[in-house]
């Protein structure tokens, strides 16, 4: 094993930044009260909790009463989509893309079982959705459109404002899974004209297990869970106060830092992409420009993703792969299939996601190690012998 550790899997999760940990700590042992309690211990906690809501709202251009805290991006997506479907209370039509995260994609699949009709819009070979396809797919039964702000695997950023305009024009609910975007790119729910937006703390150096759903004021959905009535009954359960405080602090800082960090991260990203493309038989997946600042996704021909990851890991490099061989599913990701990659190219895809703490030397380290990794695996491989 290597002594050096280079974490380039920020798209999977991020370390919690010091300031967020500091912000959380008092809420474990000193300010531990239940925010619903009448006594001063509870009231102090309520105050901090509502302050966190204000910060979260401010970070995305929302009002505090439009923020509902959840256990993460998955729950936010489920509440928005299922909650709208439950409120509709009859079969309807949903428009989404064919490259959504499973927390939207699989929800739609399940809603199909319940009688809803779902249109999974295709994207082009760079992962971009053409907004006119959304317009064309709308029917009288369409009650919600759900399009992710940016893709978690290939990093392609979608034209959300244009889709928002279409949805608003047709008075159809519009949800965006912005889990990969919040904290990375400026987000303004009003400009996007979204009715719902999902975000997740652990993607922007906040804690795991806590997220938020933005729900535009006046938009009504049915709650999925029932209980003590917290979060205006939309998401009951004793509030995860430290988590929410940590999320809001991390979010506040991440958003503040966007002007400074975005170009820097993009420069690192492009340096990595350029270096990787110098290796033979490597292609970039996703869009060359409309791309998350930290996302790099390439396919190496003739070799398989997990074995690349494993070799990188031996060098202390943490990345992820688009093939999910180890997660029980043997098919390549639906995202890579949707952008037209063949089975083998999809299986040879590796995602590096840069984030807070990564620097040029990390990129250079990866670029130094990866040629031999690829060469060794290709030497073992029965494929590509023609070159």
């Amino acid at each position, binding site marked *: 094993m290597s002594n050096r550790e280079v974490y380039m899997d920020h798209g999977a999760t991020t370390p919690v930044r010091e300031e967020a940990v500091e912000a959380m700590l008092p809420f474990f042992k000193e300010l531990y009260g239940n925010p619903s309690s009448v006594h001063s211990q509870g009231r102090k906690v309520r105050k901090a909790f509502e302050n966190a809501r204000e910060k979260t709202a401010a970070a995305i251009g929302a009002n505090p009463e439009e923020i509902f805290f959840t256990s993460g991006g998955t729950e936010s997506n489920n509440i928005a989509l299922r909650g709208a479907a439950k409120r509709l209370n009859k079969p309807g039509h949903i428009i989404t893309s064919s490259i959504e995260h499973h927390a939207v994609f699989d929800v739609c699949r399940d809603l199909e079982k319940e009688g809803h009709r779902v249109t999974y819009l295709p994207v082009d070979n760079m992962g971009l959705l053409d907004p006119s396809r959304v317009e064309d797919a709308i029917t009288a039964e369409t009650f919600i459109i759900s399009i992710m702000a940016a893709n978690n695997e290939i990093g392609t950023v979608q034209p959300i404002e244009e889709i928002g305009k279409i949805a608003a024009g047709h008075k159809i609910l519009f949800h965006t899974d912005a889990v990969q975007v919040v904290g990375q790119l400026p987000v303004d729910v009003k400009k996007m004209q979204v009715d719902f937006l999902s975000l997740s703390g652990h993607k922007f150096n906040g804690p795991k297990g806590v997220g938020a759903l933005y729900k535009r004021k006046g938009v009504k959905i049915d709650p999925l869970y029932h209980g003590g009535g917290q979060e205006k009954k939309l998401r009951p359960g004793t509030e995860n106060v430290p988590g929410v405080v940590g999320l809001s602090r991390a979010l506040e800082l991440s958003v503040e830092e966007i002007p400074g960090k975005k170009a820097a991260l993009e420069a690192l990203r492009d340096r990595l992409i350029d270096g990787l493309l110098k290796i033979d038989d490597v292609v970039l997946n996703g869009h060359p420009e409309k791309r998350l600042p930290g996302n790099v996704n390439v396919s190496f021909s003739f070799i398989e993703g997990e*074995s690349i990851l494993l070799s990188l890991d031996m060098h202390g490099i943490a990345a992820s792969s688009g093939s999910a*061989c180890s997660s029980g599913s043997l098919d390549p990701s639906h995202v890579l299939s949707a952008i037209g990659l063949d089975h083998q190219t999809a299986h040879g895809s590796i995602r590096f996601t840069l984030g807070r703490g990564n620097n040029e030397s990390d990129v250079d380290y990866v670029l130094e190690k990866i040629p031999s990794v690829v060469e060794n695996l290709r030497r073992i*491989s029965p494929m590509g012998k023609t070159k």
Partner: protein
Amino acid sequence: MYNEKVVDHFNNPRNVGELADADAIGETGSFKCGDTMTLYLKVRNGIIEDVRFQTYGCGAAIASSSMLTEMVKGKTLDQALAITNQDVADELGGLPPLKLHCSNLAADALHNAIENYRARQGIGKTG
């Protein structure tokens, strides 16, 4: 995820490559996860004298391939035929349950190679 022995075989795979003068070649592929393996055998007096492999696949697939080559060298064809996928995984000290299927290609490739050898020698399929 993987134990030390698996990691060792993955990092330092034994007997990688082709055998130009192979007496037999066995190929196999997992339809499901796309892994493929090619095994080359050099056989003398019914004994596997030399062996090489090439594998496209995950860590478990590569380590299993390497492990298998060590297991078969010096074995008679009949002894080699008795080796199962489970034997390979066992010899590696175990694999994560979800990765077991990835090790299934090694013994399969071996069996195919032996079949190929016997076909070349004009000896019919056994059993």
